């Protein structure tokens, strides 16, 4: 059973963390993963940096640019992760844009993910329809889950379609926006979380985008299976460093 599914079987709300691989320092990837696991984080999205991350806000853009400057590449990330499963047991997801994966070769990319022990991918610019038609069988061949996003504007019919194609979880974007930390969720967000909860999808939902603190985390998990923190974590990393990660996690829950 895929580690992601196993995780959702546990009777608790998930806390997942996103960071850009290669940032702040090129070789931070493994130590960040270790700190996250030891702080009790349930899942990690490892960002494969891209030159033109058009779904991301300024914080993730900046960390991606820095990672590329530090020398991060697809091959480099795979080498860093080669033996990751010796120590890291929580589900690992690679989140990245389609183009670097295409250049690497989608099949070779999937193959490597499987070898390393990656559980799934999030590719913001790979629409569900294209995935469904062209890539699903390939992903499945290598035991990789592919997770899709939904937003407050996603029509119900499409949510149902995504629910059908999805495995792992559905990434519920908190509001129509690029990534970036928010202080609070208002009623439009909670209404939306509620609405989706009432749809009783077969795939668990995890809220992402705009989660920055314990308040937004708690609102998010009230109506979903978990939450993903990205920009707020990256900002913390830049300021407080890898060694203090556990204090960030404990501030959330």
């Amino acid at each position, binding site marked *: 059973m895929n580690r992601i599914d196993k995780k959702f079987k546990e009777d608790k709300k998930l806390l997942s963390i996103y960071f850009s691989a290669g940032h702040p320092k090129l070789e931070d990837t493994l130590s960040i993963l270790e700190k996250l696991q030891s702080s009790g984080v349930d899942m990690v999205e490892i960002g494969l940096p891209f030159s*033109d991350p058009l779904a991301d806000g300024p914080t993730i853009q900046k960390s991606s640019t820095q990672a590329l400057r530090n020398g991060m590449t697809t091959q480099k990330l795979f080498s860093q992760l080669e033996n990751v499963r010796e120590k890291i047991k929580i589900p690992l997801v690679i989140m990245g844009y389609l183009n670097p994966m295409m250049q690497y070769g989608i099949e070779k990319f999937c193959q490597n993910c499987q070898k390393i022990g990656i559980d799934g991918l999030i590719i913001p610019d790979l*629409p569900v329809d294209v995935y469904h038609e062209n890539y699903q069988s390939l992903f499945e061949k290598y035991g990789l889950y592919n997770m899709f*996003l939904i937003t407050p504007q996603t029509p119900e019919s499409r949510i149902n379609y995504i629910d059908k194609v999805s495995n792992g979880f559905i990434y519920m974007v908190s509001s129509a926006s690029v990534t970036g930390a928010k202080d609070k969720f208002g009623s439009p967000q909670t209404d939306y979380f509620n609405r989706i909860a009432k749809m009783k999808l077969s795939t668990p939902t995890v809220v992402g985008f705009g989660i920055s603190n314990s308040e937004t985390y708690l609102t998010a998990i009230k109506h979903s299976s978990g939450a993903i923190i990205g920009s707020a974590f990256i900002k913390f990393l830049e300021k407080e460093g890898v060694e203090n990660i556990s204090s960030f996690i404990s501030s959330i829950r």
Partner: protein
Amino acid sequence: MNYNVNEKGYYGDFGGAFIPEMLYPNVAELRDNYLEITGRADFKKEFENLLKVYVGRPTPLYFASRLSEKYKTKIYLKREDLCHTGAHKVNNTIGQILLAKRLGKNRIIAETGAGQHGVATATVCALMGIECIVYMGELDIHRQAPNVARMKMLGAEVRSAKSGSKTLKDATNEAIRDWINNPLDTHYIIGSVVGPHPYPDMVARFQSVISEETKWQLEEQEGRDYPNHVIACVGGGSNAAGLYYHYLNDERVNIIAIEAAGKGIDSGQSAATSALGKEGIIHGSKTLLMQSSDGQITEPYSISAGLDYPGVGPMHAHLFRSKRAEFISIPDQEAMDWGLTLSQTEGIIPAIETAHAFAVLDVRKFGPEEIIVFNCSGRGDKDLSTYIDYFKL
């Protein structure tokens, strides 16, 4: 072979809509409505009327006699430089603003490189009284200052894109982010045949008026409605798409696309996508683009702000791959020289983008009986300071 878009939004292997889910409703709304709306009689009437009384269409098809004599061939210029705002870009913005109004949008965003598309967008927004925000690379804001001034005069807000190469590609990223953040009230007027389906096809259709007119104008002047060659510069590829459109499937017509070689194809400072690009995804479209072996998009370079885009529209990628079109790349220096040559031979100061196209005359031979149509895509007013500095005039 058919060179038009297919029902799935592809030109051969290229095209599609590789967009974040956040953009799905916006793009789907467009995709599901653009053909129906632009096919309505009231739309057509308003579009055609504005092209006539506001843009100044038809633009002339001008036989350049001095140039023709010099190069011993028959050279026609399709005078898009005479369009209101000074380039072909406005054909598309007129179309899109009418579409946006019918979709009930009340806020417009756009990206711009040379500033021509930004000006054309700001113009139609002023015409309709709609809010307008234009994203422009910080570098381009400096080198195309006159167009920044025009956008401000027209009441648009110009937002500086400071990431990456600080040029068109980055301005486009910023515009897409804005659209993600404002999915309901905003229409994004893309300025070329790039981006997710249906943009490439939609923009090409709006620009197709160029070859539509060329056909009857050639018939009038030459007694036949097709030339031997159609030639245009390719940034994203909209002026080229407009000129090629009605000749795409007419094999009697040779298609020539001119890209910017910048400081030379092998210099590392270029924007010659067909020569240097590989298949990939940029701004929601599968196409040819310049990128590292790792799939990071290259920061392109050209002296011309409208050509330094690391990709081309999917139609052009297909024309290249299928060998339907010849692709030629022209370095900065030749383009600049041609800016001066066209000015002093025909009294027409072209945009530096446009000047690239003419340089083909020094690179490739044409027969004395051959008819060539160049797209004179824009005027050089925006580039005067670049020209003056370059030639120390």
